[in-house]
């Protein structure tokens, strides 16, 4: 039993112990501080361990406990992949706990959050460590269960109850899909250990079925369209720091599951599997961000943008699959690295943004952007870090979001070397989708920041807003710093990812830290290169140069006055552009096919006094196509079958009698 793994297993154990203690002591006043402090410490230890493993790169280590499935035992294994995802999980866990130290104080019913929060963290850690199907699924579903309990924390409002319900049903649907996938991988003999699955290669059809089932199972947890319906309901319903965990971290655990099975256990992929994943990823990215643009609830907007990022990640995973299937190891390594890098980045800025939303929520009590505005004056620090989050997620240099998307595009540019025509044509198209989603993301977050923090206050709640506590601010500032660092020093991250990519796609990206001036060069400098650090330095220098010159040689006089606004008299704040009106042009452009949206204007008759009204009706197409029929069918079946509860005894006897006769007939006709 390897010591590292032992240490890593003690972590979840400690977390579970914390959960139990929290359940016992959750009504104490100090409980919040204690619990989040404990989780902070534990996650930090786990983070350090995993990071050192990833950096030190001593290969794999495994351990087996006499738990779980009797004849398999609970197996755990630490390799590059799980180490990386452990880093992601526990980095998120650490910072979220830090945030929770402050934010948790606002919780009205702490006893509904505190016990489940450590359990949730423990579940995610265990998923990443598990090395047999049973432990994996157990931890997976335990993770869902804990997060469900957290979603139900505010159980008094109808919305979160509904969210929780849909969430857990979808989660167990996903688990069933994974269960079937593992059933196929394990075979009739029931060898549930991953090591055994790794060696046994399923035939083509089985492999295809496993891929589809993984897309269903892991995809439903990660939020791939059309399995995303639960995500924008559940993530916002939870307390904000939990939303950050669910959106920033849990979706990544789902991606880990996908990678573990498809890249590791399944053996050599078929080229069409790449096509499937690519297309789903591209569509998910575009639809997700379009939905986000239409939202006016800040947290729901963030949840939808999570869907977009998941799409980007899956697209580049699909690219990696396609390259791997054609034996282009270096290109596969590039795409795979890009995906993992984006995983890390998204965990940074999505957590940051959800923290910001939480700060806004606790400062104003509002999630609806139509009631916010002008917060930049009230929450200076929060607004600044939120702005950094927005810039990062909009993939703008020199921040981290751009670095990973740039790598994705570089990977896409390798596509002409692919032999299959389908891929040759599809990959650039998907590239176009990704570019579109990136541009829309920028639009979306201009809206998110502009409506929430800029302009004038739209409600009295904003006037009373005060900057949030130190803990929350500290957490957000740390994340913002990470966003910048990962953006200007991408080479460091890429190199530390080499231990992950090497075993899974058989190749690694060239060493980046050796490059002059710390720039990153995926293939060759003559092809393409990017140096976030220099770009950052140049922009800073030239901006400050300009500022200096102007203030030195030109005027620096300044006068405050009322807004000009083309000479219109100062209108009420309600006259500002609102979230909906901001999105209107884009809705006109894309709404037609994405939401089947229709705008109707009813003008009053000339001289009539009532105002003209604009009605916009939009449809959640995925919901209407996939979910309503199912619920309808179930409703119909229950309605029909329910009559059987109300038969008379004679009728029940008749049932028995007929059944007997039928069986006897079967027997009589038996060969």
């Amino acid at each position, binding site marked *: 039993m390897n010591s590292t793994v032992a240490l890593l297993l003690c972590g979840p154990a400690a977390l579970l112990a914390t959960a139990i203690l929290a359940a016992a002591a959750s009504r104490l006043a100090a409980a919040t501080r204690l619990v989040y402090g404990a989780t902070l410490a534990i996650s930090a230890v786990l983070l350090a361990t995993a990071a050192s493993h990833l950096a030190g790169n001593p290969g794999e280590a495994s351990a087996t406990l006499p738990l779980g499935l009797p004849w398999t035992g609970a197996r755990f294994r630490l390799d590059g992949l799980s180490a990386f995802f452990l880093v992601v999980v526990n980095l998120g866990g650490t910072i979220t706990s830090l945030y929770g130290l402050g934010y948790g104080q606002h919780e009205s019913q702490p006893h509904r959050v505190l016990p489940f929060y450590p359990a949730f963290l423990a579940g995610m850690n265990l998923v990443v460590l598990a090395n047999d199907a049973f432990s994996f699924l157990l931890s997976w579903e335990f993770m869902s269960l804990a997060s469900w309990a957290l979603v139900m924390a505010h159980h008094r409002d109808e919305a979160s109850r509904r969210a929780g319900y849909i969430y857990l049903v979808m989660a167990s649907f996903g688990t069933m899909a994974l269960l079937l996938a593992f059933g196929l991988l394990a075979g009739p003999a029931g060898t549930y250990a991953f090591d055994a699955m790794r060696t046994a290669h399923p035939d083509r059809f089985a492999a295809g079925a496993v891929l589809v089932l993984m897309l269903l199972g892991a995809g439903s947890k990660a939020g791939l369209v059309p399995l995303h319906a639960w995500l924008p309901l559940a993530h916002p319903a939870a307390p904000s720091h939990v939303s950050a965990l669910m959106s920033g971290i849990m979706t990544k655990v789902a991606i880990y599951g996908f990678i573990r099975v498809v890249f590791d256990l399944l053996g050599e992929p078929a080229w069409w599997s790449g096509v499937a994943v690519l297309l789903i990823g591209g569509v998910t990215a575009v639809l997700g961000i379009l939905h986000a643009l239409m939202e006016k609830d800040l947290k729901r907007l963030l949840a939808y943008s999570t869907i977009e990022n998941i799409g980007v990640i899956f697209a580049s995973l699909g690219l990696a699959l396609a390259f791997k299937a054609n034996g282009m190891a270096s290109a596969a390594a590039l795409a795979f690295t890009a995906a993992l890098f984006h995983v890390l980045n998204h965990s940074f800025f999505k957590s940051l943004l959800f923290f910001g939303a939480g700060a806004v929520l606790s400062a104003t009590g509002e999630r609806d952007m139509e009631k916010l505005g002008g917060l930049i004056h009230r929450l200076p620090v929060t607004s600044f870090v939120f702005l950094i989050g927005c810039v990062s997620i909009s993939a703008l240099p020199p921040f981290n979001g751009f670095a990973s998307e740039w790598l994705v595009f570089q990977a896409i540019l390798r596509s002409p070397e692919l032999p299959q025509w389908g891929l040759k044509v599809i990959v650039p198209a998907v590239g176009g989708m990704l570019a579109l989603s990136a541009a829309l993301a920028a639009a979306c977050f201009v809206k998110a920041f502009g409506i929430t923090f800029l302009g004038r206050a739209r409600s009295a709640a904003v006037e009373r807003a005060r900057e949030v506590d130190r803990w929350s601010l500290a957490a957000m500032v740390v994340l913002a710093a990470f966003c910048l660092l990962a953006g200007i020093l991408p080479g460091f991250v890429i190199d530390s990812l080499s231990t992950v990519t090497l075993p899974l796609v058989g190749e690694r990206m060239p060493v980046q830290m050796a490059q002059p001036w710390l720039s990153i060069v995926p293939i060759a400098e003559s092809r393409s290169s990017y140096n976030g650090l220099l770009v950052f330095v140049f922009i800073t220098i030239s901006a400050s140069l300009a500022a200096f010159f102007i203030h030195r040689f030109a005027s620096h006089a300044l006068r405050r006055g009322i807004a000009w606004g083309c000479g219109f008299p100062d209108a009420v704040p309600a006259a500002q552009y609102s979230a909906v009106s901001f999105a209107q042009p884009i809705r006109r452009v894309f709404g037609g096919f994405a939401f089947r949206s229709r705008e109707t204007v009813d003008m009053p008759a000339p001289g009539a006094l009532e105002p003209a009204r604009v009605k916009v009706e939009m449809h959640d197409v995925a919901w209407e196509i996939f979910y309503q029929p199912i619920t309808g069918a179930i409703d119909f079946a229950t309605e029909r079958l329910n009559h059987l*509860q109300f038969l*008379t*005894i*004679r*009728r029940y006897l008749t049932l028995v*009698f007929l059944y*007997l006769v039928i069986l006897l007939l079967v*027997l009589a006709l038996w060969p």
Partner: protein
Amino acid sequence: MNGLTFDIAHLLAGSLVLISFMMLYQDRLFALINVFALHAVVLALSVAWQAYIQDAHHLYITAAIALVFKAIVIPVGLHRIIQRLGIHRDIETAVGIGPTMLAGIGLVTLSMVLMLRVTPEADPLAREDLAFALSIILLGLLVMVTRRNAVSQVVGFMSLENGLVLAATGAKGMPLVVEISVAFSILIAFIVIGVFLFRIRERFDSVDIGALDDYRGERR
């Protein structure tokens, strides 16, 4: 065994099936009960005959129970109940006589077919017995499901049980036959008392769906 004993046993069992058909045909309660009394008598005879040919004396007890209890006590009791509940005028078949008869014929053939698949090595008497018993049981069930009235369903159940007794006695040296027949008599007593005491009104299914809904909040 010699042919005569076999023929007599065969005759008795066959006539039991015939009487079951007669039951299917009745649509008045009193008539039904009388026919059932006849059924019980014939059963008693055949059981006694089995007791004689297997010279298993404990079977005489079964025969006696059948005669006293089923042929006399129960029918009389049912007569009284019917008068109490004042339902002796009801026409109470849920399914028409014709279809019922057809179904009955189908059931008999079915049981014959099933039992003929049994390997001939088995004791021929047992085979015949089983075939007849099976058809009696199925016919009894048929009576139960084609009649609306509690009393006639009780009758159906009892004829079904007669079939069981027939089978049990037909099985050579089967232990516990007496105990079982006693247990069944008690069971039937329960049912009859249930009909009588609990005032399960005219039918088992008297408590209509609406009522169930009101009581259990199970309305859709």
